[in-house]
């Protein structure tokens, strides 16, 4: 039960990728939403370190040696914490 609570707390301290600041590095904490499998497979998997490069209607992130463009709706499904 207690581990569940820590998990919940950890999730609360995380923010969605669309709200994250440009130019900063983050670590993916969790994926929540209908596209999470697809996001995980393209590179936004848990614990992956990413950097947000551009914001707007379409976001741009550096993920593991490559650059991925994704729409805001998808970014909302990625929970990250600063690192």
């Amino acid at each position, binding site marked *: 039960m207690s581990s569940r609570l820590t998990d919940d707390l950890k999730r609360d301290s995380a923010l969605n990728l669309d709200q994250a600041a440009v130019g900063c590095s983050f670590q993916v904490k969790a994926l929540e939403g209908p*596209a999470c499998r697809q996001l995980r497979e393209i590179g936004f998997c848990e614990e992956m370190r990413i950097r947000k490069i551009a914001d707007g209607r379409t976001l741009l992130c550096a993920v593991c040696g490559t650059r991925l463009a994704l729409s805001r709706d998808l970014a909302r499904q990625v929970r990250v914490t600063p690192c």
Partner: protein
Amino acid sequence: MSDSGEHAPVPKVALAGHPNVGKTTLFNQLTGESRKVGNYPGVTVERTSATLYTPHGHQLELVDLPGSYSLSPNSPDEVVTRDVLLGDLKGESPPDLVICVVDAASLERHLYFVLQVMDAGFPVVLALNQVDRAEDKGLRINHQVLADELGIPVVACQATTGRGIVQLKQTLRFPFPPPTPRRWKGPGAVESGILKLADHLEEAGIARPTAHAVHLLADTSYRIDPQAHLPVGAQVEAREIASTCIAKSQPPEDAISQARFLSIRRTVRAAVTETRTESETFSDKLDRYALHRVWGWFILGGVMFLVFWSIFSFASIPMDLIEKAFGALAAGVGLLLPEGDLRGLITDGMIQGVGSVVIFLPQILLLFLFIGLLEGCGYMARAAFLMDKIMSRAGLTGKSFLPLLSGYACAIPGVMSTRTINSAKERLLTILILPWMSCSARLPVYLLLIPLLVTGSFAQTMMMSLMYFLGTGTALLAAWLLGKRIGRTEPAPQFLLELPPYRVPDFGYVGRHIMGRALAFLKKAGTIILGIVILLWALGSYPKAPEGEDQLSYSVVGRLGNLIEPLVRPLGWDGRLGAAMLTSFAAREVFNGSMAVSFAIGDGEGDNATVRQRIRQRIAGARKPDGSPLYPPLTIFSLLVFYIYALQCLPTTVVVKSETRSWRWALGQLAGMSLFAYLAALLVFQVGRLFGL
């Protein structure tokens, strides 16, 4: 060895990996073929295969699979990969070995797919591609440790330079090693579920029972969507096992993907050392401008303008040469043959008719060259990123940009490349509007008619841009309107695209591709177009008019023109234009040939002017009985508008049918676009007349 016996089937090796990782380049290096390569995800949308010989002289069949991020498909091209790798594709035996191609510079992202392929129960060889780039980025990969951790052979290679190709061929030694056992272990409930399901599948006679069992638990849609090759009982049982796992708070999809990622992290930690922290690469620096919210648009606009401007200006030199050659040919043949029908057929019919189409070869090739270069250097993905902002307003995403842009060259590869679009709704919308991207077959018509409207290369380029803009703008508007009616319940399509690093395009490949297009175009000119112009010449020359009557109006074409005239009169056209328009439903370029033939028949004397100039002179000089021009600028404009919108290409309709699997969409598109073209031309002419043009 016994494997080379006459009756033994040729062993099959498949190339698999993420999109744009260099599978096709590797395929070409291994087999010496030249398949289409691009620096854009999704260039290969179908399986292709060729023969390969190992250094020991064994013959193998090498299959290039479409790029895929996982075995759980998100778009139709990924379904092909999954079905081949699970051995579920009808009429296609599963491969005997899989070469997984991964990008060494982002190994961690790629290994998930590799594990999935290993779980499918194949012997796997890992081709660590783009090692040069990884080294540049300060990544040191210990191949031996990587091979030990994964339990498979690892070969470092650089497909673009040919490095590592021989070593890769050497690993394909026959007989192939047995499949490597699974590298991860799920929680208890999932593991026992896999065992139970695999037993059940084995009893039902399904090949690769464990692979199917793992995949049934790892992919929700695979156990819910009907799968023709699986017994229904297996899916039901998989669903039951999944609910048991969920009840124990171990949802099988999450548990399996977490177990795989854990194993990947362990592997990467052991095999990869970062010698320096990631710094900004050349690509990143370029992207700061190419993706900038202001500069990015300037660059995109500049690139597009440059493409169309060079199509107009650079092409004039080879075009003049081709024109002179055809002129000399016609004059030479004219001297050799006596006056009569045969001379008419060869000079006015065949040479002029075909010449008026072939003349545009340089421009068409330039368009293919630019699209090839933009795709090859990696800029196309940036353009898709920028265009996503516009496309999303029309209910599409940046992913439909490349198919639409390819449509400028030819609608057929454009329609086929929509397979990379994951949303079914977006894919259908893109296919439906794609023929409104002005394809290269329309270029000859535009190029013939635009100089009749405006002069000077700047004004002509602007006019040309207007043609493309009208087609594209209407297409996006149509996507927006159709999107509200088609698949309303489906979620809005989402944009997710990998931007590859910039590269120097493979010029040799681009050159070969363009040569291929040139040959295809000349073949079309020498067969279909030649056939039609001969037919047109005959229809325009027979039956022979009695003395004193105009041959053209007496001929079959003239009569056909008279028949269609009431229909096209409201567009400002006469019967001749109407007949030329009808003939171009066979192929758009025929319009030029048709005009050349029908105007040459009006008066047979040869002059020094080139074919193009002669047609233009005749069109501009044609007069009505009252002395006013027969084809005023408004008529020419209405004709141009018709050609922007009309779907006059039967092969496109056939491809749309095969891609949408429905005649309803294909024929509906043909009828809808033709009707729209008529109405648009009508509107232009009638409104223009109201304004006194």
